[in-house]
Each structure stands twice: as C-alpha cells, then as structure tokens.
C-alpha cells in the first residue's frame, strides 16, 4: 500500500516494509517510489527544534525521532528501528513527520 506525504509542495508516494518484528517493537524500511532529493540539513534542524537528537554523518542523517533510531538518505530511503508500537502505521507516522517539510519551502524535492 502506498503512503503519501507532501514534501516541498508536492505529494510523494512511499512504501513501508517490515524488516524484523520483536513483539512490542519492530524495524522498518521506507522506500520512496520515484526520485526524491531531501534536504537533510533542513530535516536535521527541524528534528533538533522538536527536541530530538539528529546529526548528519557523511551522506546520511542519524536521528532518534519518537524513540526510534532512524537513518535517512537524501534519496528518501530510510531504516527505522525500534518502532513502537510494532506497526507499519507507526513507522510511517514517524517517517512522514520527519521528512514532511512545508515551511520553509523545500529546496530539493523533485
């Protein structure tokens, strides 16, 4: 099932895939459907502003949004670990709130 969120004024589809389930928490992968170029600096700053830990490490972002551990690449691909509750809905909620940027206008969305 496609998930959709608005990034930089445009709606983008994603898929959320379960990687591992541990009962009360799980690991997920999020893949964009089609080309995407996220502004990792903007996302990092947004996460820091919301009180989460976030840092850019080379070409990817490391963050702890909503108690999970996330690795996010500019292309939109991400792994979210220790997602609670263990559901793709929860993973998507974390991911979409992490990447959805309405203001200021996103610089790199395709």
């Amino acid at each position, binding site marked *: 099932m496609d998930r959709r969120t608005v990034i930089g004024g445009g709606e983008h589809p994603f898929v959320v895939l379960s990687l*591992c389930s541990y009962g009360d928490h799980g*690991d997920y*992968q999020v893949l964009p459907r089609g080309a995407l170029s996220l502004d990792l600096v903007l996302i990092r700053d947004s996460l820091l502003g919301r009180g989460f830990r976030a840092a850019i490490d080379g*070409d990817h972002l490391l963050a702890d949004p909503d108690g999970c551990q996330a*690795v996010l*690449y500019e292309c939109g691909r991400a*792994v979210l670990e220790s997602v609670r509750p263990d559901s793709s809905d929860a993973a998507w909620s974390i991911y979409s709130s992490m990447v959805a940027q309405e203001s200021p206008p996103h610089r790199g969305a395709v």
Partner: protein
Amino acid sequence: MNTSSFACFFPSIPETGAYLDSAAKTLTCRAALEAQSRFYAELDCNVERGIYTRSAKAEEEVRSAREAVAALVGVPAERLAFFPSTTAAINTVALGCPWREGQRVVTTNLEHHSNFLPWLALRRRGVVVDVLQSGPDGYLDPAAMSRAAEGAALVAFTHASNVTGAVQDLAGLSRAAAEAGAMVVVDGAQAMSHAPVDLAGLPVDAYAFSGHKCFGPTGTGAMYVSERMLAILSPPVLGGGSARHSSPEGFEPVDDPPLKSLEPGTANIAGILGFGAAAAFRAGLDQSRVEGWMDELIRSFLERLADLRRVTLFGPASASRRLPVFSIAVEGLSPHVLALRLDQEFGLMTRSGTHCAPTLWESLYGRSRGGTRISLHIYNGVEDVDLLARALARISGSV
C-alpha cells in the same frame, strides 16, 4: 573485471558494487533463463494428458528436468517431487504425516523458519516438539542427535546454516537419528549448490531444496522422498492429477509415478525446466574448480576480516566445513543500518536481521536483532571481497 571464471554464465551480475546475497537467492544462470524463455516461446502448453505432440515434447522436457535435478542429490528421478519451494516441501511432510498425540519430533536451534515453524505447529495436534541444541560453534553433534532422537518419530535438521555457513555432518547425523528409530528430514536449501549431495546409502527420508538457491528460478523446489516416508504421507493438497478415479463416493489416490500425488495441479513448467537447466549446468561444473574457488573466496574474506577492528564474525572462523556465508556485526551499528550503508554507499547487496532463524541468533549469540549476512558464490570475484573489506573498514572506522 570479475576474477571469477564462472561469472560469464550469469548475465545478471551487477556492473557496479557486488551481489552478496546468494544465500537468499543465487543469481540465475544463462541456461536456466534460456530454458524458461524457450518453453514459453516454443512449447507454451500443459503437460501430461495433452494428446498432441507439443504436449508430449513438454512432458519429455519435464522428465529430463526431473532427472537432472534428481541427479544433483544422487537419487532416481521417480523419487523426486517438485514443489514451489523448500518451505512447501517441508510443510508437505509436516502436514501429511499421520501424527498421533504424544508422538515426538526433534528439530534444532539452527533451523530456518521453513524447517522450524512447520514442526512447532504440530504442538497444536498434541505432538511433542523438542529443539536439539547445537554446540556453541554451531555444529550438531551426532552423539547428541542419537540421544535426542531416541523414541522420536521424526528428526528434522539443516544440512548447512543459512546464518553461519556451517556445514553439518549429514551422514553422521542422519545415521544417528535413523539408528535411534526416527524418520529423517533434511533442509538442503543452502548446501545444495555448493557441493554434490549423494543421498544414496544415507538413511534420509526427505531432503528438500530450492531451485532459486541453485542458479535456477524462483518458485521452484524439489524434495527426495523415501519409500517409507511416501507410504505414510497423505498429500495435504489435492486437485488435478491427484486421483486415479473419483466419484461422489470418494477417490483413489494416484500412485504412478510414486510421488505424483505430491504434485497436484498444473506445475510451474517453465520454472521446472529452468530448474532442470540449472541443475544440468551445476552438474557440468568441475567440482574441484568450484571448491577451489569457494575456498579462495572464504580465505580471502577471513583474511581481510582479521584486519578489521570493530567487526565481529558469527560462526566458524575456519575455512573448513563451511560455506562462503558469513554473518557479521560492526560495533555500534545495527544490522539493518550496516546493510543499508553497504548498499547505499558501496553498492554491496547483503541481507540483515535474523534471516528467519531467530532461535539460532538468540541461542548461539544472544542477539535478538541478528546480524548482517554476506553470502558469496561461484560468480563472485576476489575484487568483491576487496570492495567489501574496504567498505567495512570505512564504515567501522578501521581506517
């Protein structure tokens, strides 16, 4: 430049990065691709009761494919049934045996879910299911198997681990279980493509394996079934080709050829022909060259790994009695993140998590999250191992 002399047989080798996920699926050899395409381009019909020449030709090709696949495990073609996968094959045994409450089944802590869950599910039918523990090195001990199998109706174990690459003592374990009076079921999915398997003379009642782990297409599997196993099996799936006669009063199961009852419905004919072509391709490879190259890849990987700090190997550290399947962890990185970074930054295709074997990970290594698996095969070059070593050095901070 791929340094493997076998690479030329595999059209899907990536141009950049490296494919290191052969334990999940081997690349498909050209012969298998061509056999499948040829079926749809030239035959494209159903088999068995078609009274026309084309159907007869397709039937003959399926027979040849069965012979080629059966030869891989050293059994007559009439003792081999095709299935969609190893999973489907093992489930056929688990679901088809006439279990009685209180009977006992033994499986092991090393199993993939395909050879674990079907047995655990029998507890719902009152069957006692015990899990034999391997040694801390990931090898099963025939003496321990002998004790565990005493009084058991059936024992199921893997020939080679999809996590650690450890190759078990098939002869010793199967004899130990059979001498204790148990039927013997073996998951051969990982072992099959690496070395010839000769079941002749071994007390194995079922040996299941997959085409997609032996250079063939997905959706194909096969299982050797012994006479005594077939005698007690009730096929759990029935349909076209299952009955000699039927009427509203009942039906008489088909028994000619003997394993026909295990293959209901229209078969995956193109897949079977691809599987057969892959089996013939594998049989045609010089085994000493295959073993020499596998050994080279294993030694190369282990040597490079020894130079890396913060990288842990789970499983045998020696080059013997193992496949080129390695599970690792980098300190401070989760298995999924390591796999993601290997792919995203280096084009290295690996597989992370527990590899459908969480009990192995927990019992041997105390790791609920598993590791990142690198699995090599004959088409990998030493340069793939070099690239992996450089990537791990960079990611782990070893350089």
